């Protein structure tokens, strides 16, 4: 019988910019699609503007990969539209986000150390 090997956090790296930013804004807490889109725009100073197709395409892949999950928790029932779906990070999603941040930090440290960016090496 063949057993399916579960991927580790580093197996799904590098992340696409859309997936990375969605994970990053969901690290702050549960959000619905529109809130994710707005948070990404604010975070990147409108440099990354996700369209509806890209946002839900990424969400679909992230749900399949187990990076995020749908949440039943509604932040404010009075302000809420019940047709909206809320998403939150899974523990695996948190591990992946941490691994991606470490990978990018390592790259930035390397880039800063090169002469190109005024480093000493």
């Amino acid at each position, binding site marked *: 019988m063949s057993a399916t090997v579960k991927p580790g956090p580093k197996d799904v790296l590098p992340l696409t910019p859309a997936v990375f930013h969605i994970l990053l804004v969901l690290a702050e807490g549960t959000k619905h699609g*529109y809130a994710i889109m707005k948070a990404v725009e604010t975070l990147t100073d409108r440099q990354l503007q996700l*369209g*509806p*197709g*890209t946002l*839900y*395409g990424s969400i*679909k892949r992230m749900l399949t990969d187990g990076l995020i999950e749908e949440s039943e928790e509604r932040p404010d029932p009075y302000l809420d539209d019940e047709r*909206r779906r809320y998403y939150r990070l899974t523990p695996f999603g948190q591990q992946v986000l941490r691994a991606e941040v470490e990978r990018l930090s390592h790259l930035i440290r390397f880039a800063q150390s090169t002469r190109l960016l005024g480093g000493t090496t």
Partner: protein
Amino acid sequence: MAERPDDRLRQAIAVYRVLLLAYPASHRREYGPLMLQLFRDLWRDACRRSGSGSLLKLWVRVLIDLVVSASAAHWQAAKEKLMAVAHQITPMPWRNVLLIVAPGVVFGLVKMQAAAGWLTIVTFVGVAALAFVALVVQKRFSARVLLVLGMLLSASLLTIGFLIVEELSSLRIARETRHLLVSLPLWVAVVALGWKHRRPQSMLYWAFVLGAVTAVVLAPLTTLSTLSIAGLVLLPIALGLPLSRQYGTRTLLFIVGSYSPGWATWITFPDRGCRPYRGSQYTLFCSSGCS
């Protein structure tokens, strides 16, 4: 009368709803209402920022997003479909692999021994390499490959049969005896395969039985050459019996593929005009009609 903002929103949503048809149906069912909701929110945002420039920017953004994400969604859906098919198909048993590959190997060896041209050798090596990759390394393949396998098998078998008949004719053996020497092992193989893989619940099995019984009953009324052709016609069905356990009705692709070289020759040379090609690499595509 000036258009109200609500009317424009309704029209825009109607247009976006049509544009959503660009996505795969499964994606649309799952995320279509959410994407419409998001589009509505973006539209209201753009209206708040005021000016037709904001709405124009929104449409440009949405259209670019649509092209990119719909293509990605279709690619993803196709990939998932292929993966699902690959997981459904269980590895092919080794004996069946050999059954399909062996005639091609024999054909290649015969052609090489007869000092065949480089084109034949290159073709054979290419086909053998493909068969190796498809069958031995991967051991699982899409049902569509059955069509190609059927064609290769049939072309190889017909060529081998043709070469044997040609060799026998040089030994000055009577025509009827030649056909008996070819059709006898052919029928033994057909009956053995049919017996070994008998499956009363399979339609293909009953088609095979019906064909075999008809050929045997009509045998006294026909010539031996007709009987050998009937054997050739039944052989792909007999070979399809073990395949049908794994591929079900898709085995018909194998059988259609097996008959296609014969049909192609019949259509191309209705007056059996392929005799001039005898001995060249074109014999690969000659049917039993040449003999």
